[in-house]
């Protein structure tokens, strides 16, 4: 066992291979739990979209599909840079690991920035006194008229926006957690902690990041593209 290996091997594993396999399996199991976690929301979405199609359509049309599309491209791009980071780690290119991780962080932050813009547009009108026109936060100040809805339909649209904020909010939370982790991994890479034989943390965070990306790829059409032709 080389000295380099000795540093990375935890005491309870027989060899690096076992450790790597265990870590990877652990991350996959964790991602399955995330699937079920989001799954509950997706289930609720399906139920209510079936019942309240028109209100969901109206809500969806009100979102900016352009911003959503940009965000989708940004996130797919970040998955690409993430994959490149893993590849760089596997091929021992220290500087490139850092570069690609930093790019991933930047793209992820861009995504969050766009989200802030979108949220501000919908939540801004809800604050303070005044008519709250355009407020789309579910609750007493919700303004259904901006969606051309009233009465029961407006209530149904509140459910749509509850799901919009709930699902994108949960997704954004996962990114807000992921970005500092990426930073930590980038720092480890900068310090030369990874080598082709062992770069498990990069692989694991890559799995996580791809998962977060895939969730968005489902969220985008479900929330932004209802009834679009």
């Amino acid at each position: 066992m080389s000295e380099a290996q000795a540093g990375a091997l935890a005491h309870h594993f027989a060899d690096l291979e076992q450790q790597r396999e265990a870590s990877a399996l652990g991350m996959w199991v964790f991602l399955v739990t995330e699937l079920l976690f989001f799954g509950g929301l997706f289930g609720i979405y399906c139920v209510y979209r079936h019942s309240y199609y028109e209100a969901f359509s109206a809500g969806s049309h009100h979102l900016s599909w352009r911003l959503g599309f940009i965000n989708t491209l940004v996130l797919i791009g970040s998955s690409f840079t993430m994959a490149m980071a893993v590849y760089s780690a596997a091929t021992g290119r220290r500087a490139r690991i850092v570069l690609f991780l930093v790019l991933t962080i930047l793209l992820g932050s861009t995504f969050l920035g766009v989200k802030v813009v979108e949220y501000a547009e919908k939540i801004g009108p809800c604050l303070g006194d005044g008519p709250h026109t355009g407020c789309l936060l579910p609750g007493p100040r919700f303004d259904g008229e901006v969606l051309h809805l009233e009465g029961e339909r407006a209530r149904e649209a509140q459910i749509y926006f509850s799901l919009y904020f709930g699902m994108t909010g949960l997704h954004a939370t996962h990114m807000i957690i992921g970005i500092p982790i990426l930073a930590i991994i980038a720092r480890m890479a900068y310090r030369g902690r990874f080598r082709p034989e062992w770069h498990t943390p990069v692989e694991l965070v890559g799995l996580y990041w791809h998962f977060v990306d895939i969730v968005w790829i489902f969220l985008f059409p479900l929330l932004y593209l209802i009834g679009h032709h």
Partner: protein
Amino acid sequence: MTTPEAALPKTHYLNADYGWKSWLFTTDHKRIAILYLVSITFMFFLGGAYAVVIRLNLLEPTGSLVSAETYNKLFTAHGVIMIFFFLIPSIPATLGNFLIPLMIGAKDLAFPRLNLLSWYVYIVGAVFTLYALVAGGLDTGWTFYTPYSTVFANTNVIAAGVGIFIAGFSSILTGLNFIVTIHKMRAPGLTWFRLPLFVWAHYATSIIQVLGTPVIAITLLLVTLERAFHFGFFDPNRGGDPVLFQHLFWFYSHPAVYIMILPSMGVISELVTCFSRKRVFGYNFIAMSSLAIAGLGFLVWAHHMFVAGISVYAAMIFSALSFLVAIPSAIKVFNWTATLFRGSVSWQTPMLYAFGFIGLFTIGGLTGLFLATLGIDVHVTDTYFVIAHFHYIMVGGAIMGYLGGLHFWWPKMTGRLYPEWWARVSAVVVFLGFNLTFLPQFILGYLGMPRRYHAYPPEFQVLNVMSSAGASILGVGYLIPMVYLAWSMRYGKVAPANPWPATGLEWQTTSPPPTENFPRTPVVHEEVYDYSAPPKEAALV
């Protein structure tokens, strides 16, 4: 077995290091198991204290010992604590954590630091929830049905929801750790079908923990958001559906009951085989039935909702599946019983608990069939019949298995023997007290006494008094082991490495084991549960 006086090993996991830091920052799975043991024991007695007040209140039909508000908070606290903070972690976090690496010949679980994190997460969740229960209380029932919990209750729903949400991650982390450990860290020669059934049971349990817990997490999160931000998923006045909550809630909470019973069944397999000195009859069937229960357990949730407003056809499907999920449990009971045939049956304490389990779990499981039967469920759902049913399984089943396991592995964990006669006496007291408490409740339920009632019609009083009397006996039965187990840690006879003796890798190392479990990695050549000859004496020491 006449042995020379056993001596404690010079170093073992308990004396390897001293001081609070060595415990609170440990990554040794055995120490983490002890941390959990202390925590869940505390929670058990806290939840039990609530039960005592409940049963005292129910001595009188007017139920005026406490006010209605207080009573509602009592049964809610009892349920929340017992389910989320005692039963769900109990065996996996204590016995599972301690034994799984030992049983598979590993030095630790796959992720020791995640293991410690899971305990801290549990503690944080417990603190949140206890705060909610104590500062004002919670009165929604552990089931949090909407729209009561989201709109009408004016108790600490959000704090409790957050606390349980956090504690759920503890469960997920434990399950994740076990799955990876069992897959990747078995000793050479230890194939799947040489694994002790305790390990199989925990593997199946971990699958449920990993798949089910996230759903309750999101459900409670939504209840919290609904209460805080008026989201409206479950409120008919805002376009939501209260029954949708029930679907989401029971999607986890039904499999959760299998989280609570499967590990105990794993313990029983170990006890029955060791104390009959025979390989378990139908090993493959028992192993596979654990997986079947885990899988089928996800398909039956709406049997809690037969009168809640689901369609007749949906009800029929869930009823049929509920009968299916009962069959693997029946298979286990028959196999355990058959294991005694032509065995060498000892009546030591762990085996007494195993006997109790098999008898009481059988009753509990059979009464589950009453609930799966649509025509009967309409009458007995939401009555004391259901309460009796699940207490037979949870208390008569799961807790008896837990106590049996605790006694069986006590020498391994502490290096001491518990006092056998005191232990047998309390096992009998528990058995008698339990039946007196809960058997009358079946009758009460069929007579029509609804659950969660603090006051009831006078004609139900006799049965309630019987039940409360039983509860007092049961309480005593649980207190006695606390005393003698604590006593034994200091004054108990020193245990040899393998006092029973039993097969299994955990018995091949010292009692207590060293921190690294085995001085060198075991290699397994034999089949599991080979009692044709005496198990080797601590060959790996």
